[in-house]
């Protein structure tokens, strides 16, 4: 059996497949369907210092091969997570990545300081497209990406920092470089692309928030291209995501240079998507005589 273990900034994952933030809660529900201990990691629902109720409903819609969501960072707040959910996640022997968001630089500093040493990694959400004050303001301009990254990094003495990048920007590679300059240990991409679906009978957007973040199989080529561009631009590890539904999809990202991948929307289409991807990776590597998944990373040959 091929080795699936990967190491991202000192954190060893048993395989490169991580549940993407927002599709997996804090893991308890999916653990009723399968043992989430098989996963390389879980990125939590986006956490804020205070509880948030999120956006009005409907919060979800479909396009062809994609979905749109605008949940708006509903979460129980950091205290509830620390008291009620963290121990469960840690007991599952999977890397725990706390996804965090804030309205201000102080929010980011505060939440990172309180999570320092308590989780395996912190993922900075500076790219949520669905709330006015969800960090998107920090995620667009490279100067502010660098600033919020360095504020978060200062608050994290022991825990590596991932910065999750928005694709709704002028150059995602420039922003990735800004995160690296700000002290990020890793970047993850892509967050969702902002989109809209209209109900032509009512002449209104289907989602209450009007716009939503587009994700799912249909966005994968865009995500792969962006991961490729970012991997060329930075020296820190890259976690790729966007439309991954099977092992072959995950391998595209890894060949483009990603050290690991996240899977989001596929969890809705198939609750067993991630265990199947992990098994599929193992099968593919064995069938191709590849002994270690790390040998696949960044092996892209351009035409």
């Amino acid at each position, binding site marked *: 059996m091929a080795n699936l273990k990967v190491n991202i900034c000192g954190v060893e994952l048993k395989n490169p497949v991580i549940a993407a933030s927002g599709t997996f809660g804090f893991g308890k529900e999916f653990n009723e369907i399968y043992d989430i201990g098989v996963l390389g990691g879980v990125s939590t629902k986006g956490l804020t210092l205070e509880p948030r109720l999120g956006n009005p409903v409907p919060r979800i819609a479909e396009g062809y091969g994609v979905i749109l969501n605008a949940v708006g960072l509903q979460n129980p707040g950091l205290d509830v997570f620390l008291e009620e959910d963290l121990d469960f996640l840690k007991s599952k022997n999977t890397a725990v990545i706390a996804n965090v968001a804030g309205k201000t630089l102080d929010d980011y500093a505060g939440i990172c300081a309180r999570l320092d040493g308590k989780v395996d990694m912190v993922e900075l959400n500076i790219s949520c497209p669905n709330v006015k004050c969800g960090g998107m303001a920090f995620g667009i301009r490279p100067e502010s990406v660098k600033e919020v990254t360095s504020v978060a990094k200062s608050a994290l003495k022991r825990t590596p920092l991932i910065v999750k990048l928005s694709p709704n920007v002028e150059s995602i590679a420039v922003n990735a470089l800004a995160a690296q300059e700000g002290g990020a240990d890793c970047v993850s991409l892509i967050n969702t692309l902002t989109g809209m679906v209209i109900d032509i009978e009512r002449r209104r957007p289907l989602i209450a928030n009007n716009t939503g973040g587009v994700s799912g199989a249909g966005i994968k080529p865009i995500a792969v291209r962006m991961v490729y561009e970012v991997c060329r631009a930075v020296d820190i590890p890259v976690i790729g995501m966007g439309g991954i539904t099977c092992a072959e999809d995950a391998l595209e990202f890894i060949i483009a240079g990603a050290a690991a991948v996240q899977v989001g929307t596929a969890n809705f*289409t198939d609750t067993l998507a991630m265990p199947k991807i992990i098994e599929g990776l193992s099968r593919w590597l064995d069938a191709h005589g590849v002994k270690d998944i790390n040998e696949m990373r960044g092996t892209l040959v351009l035409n």
Partner: protein
Amino acid sequence: MKELRVTVAENVPIAKNVYKMRFLLPEKTEGLACGKFVNISVGDGAHLLRRPIAICGYDETSVTICYQLKGAGTRAMSEKKVGDTLSCVLPLGNGFVVEEQEKRIALIGGGVGIFPMLSVLREYAGLGKEFYSYIGFRNKDAVCMEEEFSALSQELHIVTDDGSFGDRGNAVSAFFAGIDAANPDVIFACGPTPMLRALKTELSARKVNIPCYVSLEERMGCGIGACLVCVCKRAGGKGNARVCKDGPVFAIGEVEI
């Protein structure tokens, strides 16, 4: 709950734009009950979300759901043939429960909301309960399952919006017209939001204190409680509830409608 690949055994229209699908379970499945739902894929690559649909009936080897054609996804479902397979997560949600001491049950259903009501009738038929059913449809083309409702109910009142079948009116007004005679111990309801809102308003205005449970509908993501897409507001500013996991059945006073 678990994810299974189920096999279509029947998939036929039963009213205008309404289909009944019975599918076979590949293995024994615990926890099936009236008022719970399944989250079923439509079986093509274009639709990434499953369709959450109430259980209308079940036995040890199969489950029946009834669904309305609303868009391309449910149309794709309606084209599935006997023998085709679909991915299905089930059973989901909390369901309706009739307590031992509750003997007289009022069932109020509007449109496709009649199917969870039928699931209650089927589950508790022959157990010494009396059912008073009030079901409403848009018009006579939408009427279905009326014979089974009639056979299993002590009393059945069918209404349509335009009076083309049964009396003209809606299920909630039919229920309140019959409430004194029915004298129910508990009320179950499922239907469009305006119908449930009218029920809540009228129960409150008439100071009716009979326990009442309603099944809510909302667009869902995961269907298992993880993604926080299908929320409703808890009454009294107590935050959000997840329709898929905390519901879909709620005490009518527990949530804002």
